[in-house]
């Protein structure tokens, strides 16, 4: 029994819209959590080692802002844990044997640690010894970064699905090598890149808000120390983000190669090492880059880390897609015969030989009910469509990189000013720093766009097309849920931003210790010598 209906593009687009919306929204809160927790660990370590109370105040105040952000991180994370099942039901079945494992491990290894010790961080100040509390903060930070590790192992597998094999009996991908899944080079590259980007976000956040206090001339000792911690951690992080960019994973697997070629608008395969299109206007019709400014050798070096490996161009990728679609049609035919009850051993052997292209055969289900009925034109169209649009990828990537380099500049300058002890006088820099607070978020959201839109038309690269992965819901269901998410998320975001701005403006005075700017009119107790 084959599905008798063609897939409804609008419905699939709505499903994708909902996932993109909820995931990008979730990731407004995650990066700050990733980085701020480690900044809290650094500040509290200084407190524990030196006994200087100002560092405890710093831990508590930045912890308060962390909490406002963390609440929405948890809220929006709930959606993500269940959304594969609600909206990507066939995906969940098709790859759950592999993909479910890292998600479950994330819960057991990371979320429990993070959430249990988040409670201790906030409520344990009076109940735990200094060292115990520091350990609790450390566990919170560790849990947060571990959760990023496991979700990126899951995500990395979608980009480059290794360690698994398709079973025609169960109609799904099944795990064959768990170690391969965990040590997936694409996942590891993404992990380093993503957590380092989170660290940068928190550093820019602390630097920006500290700059505001310095500009206002308030709580200078507090602000300078906070800035110093953030700028040091930030410099190490931004260098990791840029040097260890996850392009290193883009040479692995056909879909990743496609993504790389699309990002670079590399229509023709060049001789190694390929030159890099710094800027230009990609033209999908003529398949050329108009007005391109090229940097010789750069792309080959960045992407392959070598002088002799080629970066495959889109013309060649389309030709390869076509060949794989033809084999995919054969694979699909064999699969249908096996599923219909043909027990022949040779048929099974034939299927095993071509099944790695089954996904390409499935791409045709957007055009025809039965892939073997596809016309040559439809096959050509499917081969041509098996890649994302070039322009948004080309520009999205360049904007992300541009913002990254801008942040490197800001952090490096801030580091220099801090080292020279002249930060307070650099008012233009401080103002620019306040205005730069949104920059890391912009870069990160663009990064996710490039990574996931760049995976299209696949839900899992080369295996499962996105349009097949969606649940059998109706457009009405989707419009309802998207409206609900939009409504609740907007209300919560407004409240969160309002509280964040309110407490950032009050600053450490919100701790009600009597030591800070807005309280000093009343009394001005100095810092206790040490505790």
């Amino acid at each position, binding site marked *: *029994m*084959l*599905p008798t209906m063609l897939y409804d593009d609008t419905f699939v687009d709505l499903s994708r819209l909902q996932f993109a919306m909820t995931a990008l929204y979730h990731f407004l809160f995650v990066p700050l959590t990733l980085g701020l927790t480690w900044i809290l660990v650094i500040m509290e370590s200084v407190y524990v080692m030196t006994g200087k109370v100002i560092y405890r105040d710093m831990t508590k105040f930045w912890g*308060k802002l962390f909490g*406002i952000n*963390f*609440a*929405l991180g*948890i*809220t929006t994370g709930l959606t993500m*844990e*269940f959304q*594969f*099942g*609600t909206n990507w*039901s066939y995906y969940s*079945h*098709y790859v*759950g*044997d592999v*993909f*479910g*494992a890292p*998600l*479950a*491990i*994330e*819960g*057991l*290894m990371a979320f*429990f*640690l993070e*959430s*249990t010790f*988040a*409670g*201790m961080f*906030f*409520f*344990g100040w009076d*109940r735990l010894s200094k060292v*115990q509390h520091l350990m609790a903060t450390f*566990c919170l930070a560790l849990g947060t970064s571990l959760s990023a590790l496991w979700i990126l192992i899951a995500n990395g597998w979608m980009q480059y699905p290794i360690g698994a094999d398709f079973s025609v*009996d169960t109609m799904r991908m*099944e*795990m064959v090598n*768990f170690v391969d899944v965990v040590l997936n080079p694409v996942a590891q590259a993404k992990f380093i890149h993503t957590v380092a980007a989170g660290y940068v976000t928190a550093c820019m956040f602390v630097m920006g808000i500290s700059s505001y206090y310095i500009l206002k001339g308030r709580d200078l000792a507090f602000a300078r120390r906070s800035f110093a911690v953030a700028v040091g951690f930030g410099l190490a992080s931004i260098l990791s983000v840029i040097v260890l960019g996850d392009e290193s994973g883009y040479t692995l697997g056909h879909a990743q190669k496609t993504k790389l070629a699309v990002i670079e608008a590399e229509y023709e395969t060049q001789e190694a090492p390929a030159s890099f299109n710094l800027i230009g206007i990609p033209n999908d019709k003529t398949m050329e880059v108009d007005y391109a400014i090229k940097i010789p050798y750069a792309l080959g070096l960045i992407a392959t880390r070598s002088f002799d490996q080629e970066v495959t161009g889109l013309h060649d990728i389309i030709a390869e897609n076509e060949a794989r679609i033809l084999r995919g049609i054969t694979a699909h035919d064999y699969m249908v015969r096996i*599923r219909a009850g043909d027990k022949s051993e040779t048929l099974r052997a034939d299927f095993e030989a071509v099944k790695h292209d089954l996904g390409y055969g499935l791409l045709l289900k957007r055009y025809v009910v039965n892939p073997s009925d596809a016309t040559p034109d439809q096959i050509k169209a499917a081969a041509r469509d098996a890649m994302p649009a070039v322009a948004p990828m080309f520009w999205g990537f360049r904007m992300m990189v541009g913002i990254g380099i801008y942040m490197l500049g800001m952090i490096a300058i801030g580091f220099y000013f801090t080292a020279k002890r002249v930060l307070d006088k650099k008012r233009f820099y401080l103002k620019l720093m306040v205005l730069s607070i949104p920059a890391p978020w912009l870069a990160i959201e663009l990064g996710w766009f490039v990574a996931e839109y760049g995976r299209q038309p696949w839900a899992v690269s080369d295996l499962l097309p996105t349009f097949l992965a969606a*649940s*059998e*819901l*109706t457009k*009405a*269901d989707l419009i309802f*849920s998207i409206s*609900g998410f939009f409504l609740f998320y907007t209300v*919560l975001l407004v*409240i969160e931003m309002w*509280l964040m701005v309110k*407490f950032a403006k009050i600053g450490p005075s919100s701790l009600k210790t009597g030591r800070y700017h807005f309280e000093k009119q009343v009394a001005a107790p100095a810092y206790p010598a040490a505790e």
Partner: protein
Amino acid sequence: MLFDYETLRVIWWILIGALLIGFAIADGMDLGVGNLLPFLGKRDEERQQIIASIAPHWDGNQVWFITAGGAIFAAWPLVYAAAFSGLYMALLLVLFALFFRPVGFDYRDKVEDPRWRTSWDWALFGASAVPSIVFGVAFGNLFLGLPFHLDEYMRSHYEGFLLTAFLPLLNPFALLCGIISFAMLSTHGAVWLQMRTDGAVQERARKTVRILAPITIIGFAVAGLWIAYGIDGFHIVSQQALDSDSTPLEKVVERAPGGWLANYSLYPITIAAPVIGFVGAILTLLLSMLHRPGKAFLTSALSVAGIIGTAGLSLFPFIMPSRTIPNSSLTIWDATSSHLTLTIMFWVVLFFLPVVLGYTAWCYIRMWGKIRIPDDTHPKQSGY
């Protein structure tokens, strides 16, 4: 591999059951507290006192829910796929409600305005009550079978959309299960408050147990009779070997009156579960009235485990029966992950679950003690 596929499938049914029971005991406690918050706390200080009793723990407790979701994905991918999409509206309702818990706990005390705080108190109530009820309703519908079926390619299909999919879930039996779930978790929360608070809140909590525990007991008994006489159970007539691949379309399933009680005559030891459910709830009521909230909390946890265990054992080996095409029902024999994945995940759980329980217990111990309304002798504790 240490265990054969068949054994491992049973082990995983126990592990998922343990995670769900863990969720109901840990997070169910603070859902129950949320259900009672606006009623047991009359003044702002009292509501702060109530929230303070769960504030350090609710977040860790909620991870039981998330982890149960992840574990179902890893161990029963077909169930994860079919259940959450088939119950789309119900799950959205739970998610939308749960959104307000993290923000409610964290943001409530950040502004002094009483309107702000009262709004968050009611938001926390809704965020606790909706999931408390919907979880019960969902379990109730499992006994009746869900309207889904699988096609040749294991794609799941459902009946209806929006309200036409959702309203049929609100049938009398499922609503009864929703009431049991609400009463059970609220009793659990009330006993917790009786144990961890003092003064007016403690006394009100004790009075609440006197109302809610009997509702749980009577509801559980009525549901048992209803299942015995009013609902056709599901029964596997024939299926492939229990250690073969997960191919859920190769079995034949029939419905039979009283079918959900079959396991109790087949394996009489399983009667222990409903007995623990009943005895636990009755002891909770007595111990609470006798001012022994610590022991009452333990018996309440036992009762929760017994009641959920009863539901699981009655359904065994079914996880998700299909009302529309019974042969599409998902069971522990044909909806699991591969042998390899189940093995790996078994070791992962075996290692991490004790670690999690260990540090969770440590945190509870460090935070232990009566929560009092702050005054001259009891300074305000640190918070968000």
